[in-house]
């Protein structure tokens, strides 16, 4: 990792406005006690130990309560007992039960990313996990168990690759979810140099893991869903498989230029990030630089890790927030609605915080005041550095910027112990695990148990959650866009298969409404169908089935 170095923006005067959300880490009491094993604890020998992995909030059993999936790594010396991806079933009382074994999801290895989608349209969300080595597709059998169908789906590869980000998307709009996978670097233990052995393996004069600079680029892949449970590799004919000079990480598929076809944004480490624009004919054109989302505002490559997508300025268009390495600002790109972006980082006053290497992130309304906030998690990649340079700690606090509603943000110093307590975190996912109408946050910590930040929101703000179920479109409704109008504003959200860092959020779209008690919804389904739902009452979850209007919520969802 590495990128540009810059200086922090001066912190503006505090607004003095109260922030109603406060986060408490309830992971231990919720039963999330198994540590996430990932490489060395105090020292990393290879970059493969450093990047970590993602997590997901998803409702695998359709009971209306989101469950938890956490990826895991291993150690150079081999997987210690208990090192495994984990599935936790929501007990609907604030606690979770580890059902990894019964679900058939026990697996240890260098896992990286997870993306969720119902690829076979059977009504149950499936899992795709990327790995250094062989990626894995798990089909949800609908009975609480999963089956590894990687080989039969045609996703097994003979070569060892470093699968990084991934996303389900319906790029050809045939109603079946296709799959995009970014690849990080070409890596093998035999040839990657050791810490300190060359200049790419030093940081601040100290020997650290080598890469990605100096290592060969990965090559990204696109798999077309054949509609029969199998996929065909269309990387070459789609234009995705060209060797882009990129170390690909988190992937977000969304319709950024609002032409009705999903595009693909790939955060890239130490190289220009990529924006593949869907050409409507099965091919993509990479236009990251010309559309303004590849580089910093001064044209520099940044160490792109995580991506948040949301409508921070309530203009009805999806903006992008991307996290980076320490000593660089994160970046906020404002979308003009045609898929052209302007860097608004400094105008938004987000350049005040550059102390930490930042990972999972999201643009979500955490206090339900109607304005989406920005949250990201942090953590060092070189734990050994801290001993000599204490100003670069391995464990760092989470960062929360509240949206002031005027195009600027304000860093919240104390949003509860769940935010201020330091960890070395990577992926994070946003969702309402206790169905109480606010957004909670699941965070993956390196070599520690995860954090589950329960949002103890005060105040009287209203909210609305929208669960979409595709019929003509893919069942997960991935790529469906909801425009929600309230209090004279309009907010866009889209159902995503991956964002944050290698992670997947609760697929129920959450809108804080502030003082508004109703909202008007416009839904554009991936099939092209548009539906309107005026005057929807606040403070509820609604489930909308494509072509069938509002239907009863699934399971026990409140």
């Amino acid at each position, binding site marked *: 990792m590495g990128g540009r170095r810059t200086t*922090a*923006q*001066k912190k503006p005067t505090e607004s003095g406005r109260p922030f109603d959300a406060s986060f408490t880490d309830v992971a231990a009491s919720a039963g999330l006690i198994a540590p996430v094993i990932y490489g060395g604890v105090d020292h990393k020998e290879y970059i493969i130990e450093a990047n970590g992995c993602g997590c997901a909030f998803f409702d695998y059993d359709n009971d209306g309560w989101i469950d938890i999936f956490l990826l895991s790594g291993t150690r150079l010396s081999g997987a210690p007992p208990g090192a495994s991806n984990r599935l936790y079933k929501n007990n609907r009382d604030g606690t979770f039960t580890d059902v990894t074994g019964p679900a058939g999801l026990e697996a240890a290895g260098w896992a990286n990313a997870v993306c969720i989608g119902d690829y076979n349209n059977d009504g149950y969300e499936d899992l795709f996990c990327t790995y250094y080595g062989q990626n894995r597709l798990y089909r949800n059998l609908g009975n609480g168990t999963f089956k590894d169908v990687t080989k039969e789906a045609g996703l097994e590869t003979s070569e060892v690759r470093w699968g990084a980000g991934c996303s389900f998307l319906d790029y050809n709009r045939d109603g079946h979810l296709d799959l995009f996978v970014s690849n990080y670097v070409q890596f093998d233990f035999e040839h990657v140099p050791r810490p300190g052995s060359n*200049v790419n393996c030093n940081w601040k*004069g100290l020997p650290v893991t080598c890469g990605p*600079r*100096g290592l060969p680029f990965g090559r990204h892949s696109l798999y077309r869903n054949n509609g029969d449970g199998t996929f065909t590799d269309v990387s070459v004919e789609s234009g995705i498989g060209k060797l882009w000079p990129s170390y690909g990480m988190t992937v977000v598929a969304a319709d950024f230029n609002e032409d009705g076809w999903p595009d693909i944004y790939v955060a890239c480490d130490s190289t220009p990030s990529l924006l593949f624009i869907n050409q409507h004919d099965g091919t993509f054109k990479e236009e990251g*630089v010309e559309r303004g989302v590849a580089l910093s505002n001064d*044209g520099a490559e940044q160490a792109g890790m995580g991506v948040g997508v949301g409508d921070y300025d309530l203009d009805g268009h999806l903006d992008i927030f991307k996290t980076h390495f320490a000593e660089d600002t994160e970046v906020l790109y404002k979308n003009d609605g045609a898929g052209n972006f302007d860097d608004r980082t400094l105008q938004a006053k987000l350049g005040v915080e550059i102390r930490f290497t930042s990972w999972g992130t999201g643009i979500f309304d955490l206090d339900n005041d109607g304005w989406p906030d920005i949250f990201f998690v942090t953590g060092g990649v070189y734990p050994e550095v801290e001993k000599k*340079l204490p100003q670069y700690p391995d464990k760092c606090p989470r960062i929360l910027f509240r949206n002031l509603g005027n195009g600027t943000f304000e860093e919240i110093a104390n949003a509860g112990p769940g935010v201020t307590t330091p960890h070395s975190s990577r992926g994070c996912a946003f969702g309402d695990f206790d169905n109480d109408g606010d957004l909670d946050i699941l965070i993956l910590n390196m070599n520690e148990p995860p954090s589950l930040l329960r949002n103890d929101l005060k105040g009287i703000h209203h909210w609305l959650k929208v669960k979409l179920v595709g019929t003509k479109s893919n069942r997960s409704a991935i790529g469906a866009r909801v425009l929600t109008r309230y209090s004279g504003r309009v907010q866009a959200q889209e159902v995503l298969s991956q964002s944050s860092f290698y992670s997947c959020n609760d697929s129920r779209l959450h809108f804080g409404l502030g003082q508004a008690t109703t909202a008007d919804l416009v839904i554009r389904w991936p099939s092209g169908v548009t539906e309107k739902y005026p005057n929807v009452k606040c403070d509820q979850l609604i489930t909308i089935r494509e072509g069938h209007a509002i239907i009863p919520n699934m399971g026990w969802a409140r």
Partner: protein
Amino acid sequence: MFPAKRVALFILGAALVAQGQATKASIASIQSLIRAQEYDQALQLTRSALHETPNDFRLWTLEGIVLSIKGSNHDALNAFDSALSLSPNYTAALKGEVQLLYPTQDKRALPLLKRILKVDPRDETAHEMLAILEGRQGNCLAANEHFLLSTEVILNHPYSLEVYGYCLVQTRQYQKAVSIFERLATLVPEQTYPKYDLAVVLVGAKQHEAALKVLEPLLATDQSDSDILSLASEAFEAVGNTPKAVSLLRQAIVLSPANANYYIAFAALCLDHESFQVGIDMIDAGLQRISDDPSLYISRGLLYAQLAQYEEAEADFNTAEHLDSAQSLSSYAMDLTEVQKNQPDEALSEVRSQLKAHPDNPLLHYLLAKLLISQGSDADTDAGKKASGEALNSLLRAVKLKPDLAEARDLLASMYIRSGRYDLAVEQCRLALRYSASDQTAIYHLIVALRHSGRSGQREEIPTLVKRLSDLQQASRQAETDRKRFKLVEQEPVPPQ
């Protein structure tokens, strides 16, 4: 450059036109006496004739010639001045006076040579002399024009070739400079300096392989010239042979341990190869011999900053400032350190204070603007508008003081983009690229500005710029890979002598 003999010939070439008040007989008699080297009699006869016809400029000229031959330069100059006051463009008097002024590179020769050329624009010797004088005054553009008009003459004059080559380098005409220094090297093959000059130009022109072809024979015969060793080190580093570069530079330091430049070059190598502690150790060795050179402290401070040892860095920059407050680089570095320590308020205050001491330092103006912009004040508040205005003025000042300060132009373009003044941004980007064609920031800003400019004709340029930027990024990565192949490791430090 121009020995007296040659200048004498130059004067004798001037015709003393036998017209006017004095008789042909008296002029001819004086000339005869001069040719017969009967200078006292010639002077006596001249003065006697002047008594009769004091307004005869030819007689004043002859008196000047005789006096200059006798070594009475002051009186000779007065005589030539008298002649020229009577006949301002009288070539013989002009040349006579130039002959006296030129050997000491006296600036008073400049207008005289111009008058000679007004009378005879094809006088190559006058062009050559004028070129040299202009070159030595630092007026290289003017010098180059006159060298061009005296090409035939200068081809056999080593000093003229040397000055011409210098001026071509100053005006960034490296390829022409190479051919001039090649000619110089051919003209005086026994001399080392023309080859060294040629190699300097080739390194400046980034023709490092060619430079090494010139330098390697010099190194093979003699490794006692530290300047050659240092230059060769630079060339070897550029072609990726870092071990050789390090070895030669260490040799240069051993030969000239009191020359701070070599330690600084070594520190630069260490910065490039991220071998910061090795660089610090070498500078420490240098400071044992030269404890009062501010550049050494600045170099070591920069190395400390890379190791995030900001207190040590700041102490070094302070020492440099204390040793030489006239130089402003340490101020700039000190401010940068405050910035790196994420203390923007302190940095801003420091920059303002240092600008009082160094008001014409473009880097400090640039840094002030950068800090003001990073404050990110609201553009719609009075304070924000004031800060933004001050930043803009600082940047305009910086580029006025140093038009090729591409970083300042890049920041200007960024400001113009943020305020929606895309045409001005485009202009700054193009200016930055004129000075630095590989400025990736300028290309990126140009893409952004053109995308917003709303002119479809201009937007058509964007794909080409995207390709150019991509190529440059790739080249940068390759260069970085090449550079980072080597890391410098500790050796025994150079012992103090």
